[in-house]
């Protein structure tokens, strides 16, 4: 259950979340209906057998938004529609008009929907009440915003905004690679993306590359700027930070996972609980390093 990508939102720390569990229960995931395209709602973070829709450790709350989507490929509908149109043309000697074709297509979709496969999905989120931070396990802004909208729908009000950096992130990332001091605990990884300053300019992507060598230096001198940078936090977490402030490839390293090895693995729930505690602690620690470095705005007045 370790998060792989972190999209960050901030909300006021004064927000009252005491009735969270009951509010989530009202918006629990309902199975997608026979004639529905999709359905979305909260599911237990512990999976199908879980009883609660949220799980809290200290000031961290773990939520999961589940989705059920019908798979109905456009090509299937169009193929059936073409056959039907052919049949009608043979029978009546004329092609049906646009309106009739549209109605036929709608009828076909209604006919196929109950037989369509249902694709289940799940996106996890972490609410850090101490920092007023909502972390969604997705690198897609749209998917992350959908999770926040779902939380807002459940709570009635959830004034969460995407994190706002008061400095240009690409300038900070470029500075780190160019030899400026990194925040305490952070060290450079071996992956980066550099972009030319001009719109639609050159893009250089490096992997397994020494980032402080001459090759990268030449690109910087030519005016390229870093838009993605691999970093490591205290040998506990490795990740790639983008100029869009999305943390990708978030991975707990051996240094952090060692602490988990000693826990009792017999109980699945205890295992997930321990994993969440560890991941939440590392994600919060990472945020407390990034917050001053990127001058991230607070959501409190």
């Amino acid at each position, binding site marked *: 259950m370790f998060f792989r990508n972190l999209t960050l939102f901030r909300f006021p720390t004064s927000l009252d979340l005491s009735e969270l569990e009951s509010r989530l229960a009202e918006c629990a995931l309902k199975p997608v209906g026979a004639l529905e395209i999709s359905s979305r709602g909260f599911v237990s973070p512990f999976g199908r057998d879980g009883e609660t829709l949220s799980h809290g450790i200290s000031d961290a709350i773990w939520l999961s938004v589940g989705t059920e989507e019908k798979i109905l490929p456009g090509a299937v509908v169009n193929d059936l529609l073409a056959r039907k149109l052919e049949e009608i043309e043979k029978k009546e000697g004329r092609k049906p008009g646009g309106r009739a074709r549209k109605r036929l297509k709608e009828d076909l979709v209604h006919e196929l929907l109950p037989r369509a496969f249902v694709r289940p999905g799940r996106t996890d989120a972490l609410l850090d009440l101490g920092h007023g931070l909502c972390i969604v396990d997705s690198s897609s802004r749209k998917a992350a915003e959908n999770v926040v909208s779902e939380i807002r729908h459940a709570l009635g009000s959830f004034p969460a905004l995407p994190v706002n950096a008061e400095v240009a992130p690409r300038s900070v990332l470029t500075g780190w690679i160019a030899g400026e001091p990194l925040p305490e605990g952070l060290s450079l990884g071996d992956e980066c993306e550099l972009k030319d300053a001009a719109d639609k*300019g050159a893009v250089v992507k490096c992997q397994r590359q020494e980032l402080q060598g001459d090759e990268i230096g030449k690109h*910087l001198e030519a*005016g390229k700027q870093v838009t993605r940078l691999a970093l490591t936090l205290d040998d506990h977490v490795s990740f790639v930070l983008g100029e869009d402030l999305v943390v990708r490839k978030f991975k707990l390293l051996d240094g952090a996972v060692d602490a988990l090895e000693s826990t009792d693995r017999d109980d699945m729930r205890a295992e997930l609980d321990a994993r969440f505690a560890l991941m939440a602690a590392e994600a919060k620690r990472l945020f407390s390093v990034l917050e001053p470095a990127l001058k991230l705005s607070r959501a409190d007045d």
Partner: protein
Amino acid sequence: MPNPLRRLLAPHSPVIERDVTSVVLDDGRQVEIQRVRNPRARRLRLSVDERGARLTLPTRASLKSGERFLEDHRTWLADQLARYTLTGLPTLQREVTTSLPLRGTMVPLRWSAGRFTSLEFDAATGELDFRLPARAGEAAMRRALRDFYEGQARADVGRWMPRYLPTLPRPPRRVVFKVMSSQWGSLAPNGVVALDLALVLARPAAFEYVLVHELCHLLRADHSRAFWREVELRCANWREERDYFHAEGRRIKATLRTLLSC
């Protein structure tokens, strides 16, 4: 089998054609005119703003008629160009520019050599520090300036936003900064607030008014009296700020355009 008649009758998607022509004014000056053929235009139209002159032609108007129209209005064009041409706009020239506009004032600028291109505000000295490697080109310099302005604008928005969030039905989905041609801000139906980057050059109270204006559209998606009441509740001096934009807006927008264009 494709029906040629149907293809013939199908409406064509409107295509806007642009090119540049020129006209010689009475004083001998040759000025460039942007010529736009717009299918939505119903008549010939000559307009002038701080970006220059523009001749709009309907689909069926001939180029000759456009030229005649320009000739007939040469005197008017010269008057308008004199009125709208802004002089004394700051420019960005390496090692030459000594100050840059920010939040309604000019901030001193110093140039230094660096390993990468960056522009930062040094709070200790109250100066901007532009660091450039020897090989960095114009594009890198202007990109750094744009990033700096966006960072400053985000800092302002980050400071003001929490004050207004509690009284809104929902927060904006996100705030983006763009270089806008005529608007100062907009709110999309999906909740994304777009603000003109030039706002960071205006005085802070005016910038805050635009933010409040767009946030109030989350309450009322119109410009009704009820909407302006919401604006008034949050920004009592909005009329002064609107007047400020009427007086200074063109200059502010032109300044940003000049600074960011190579």
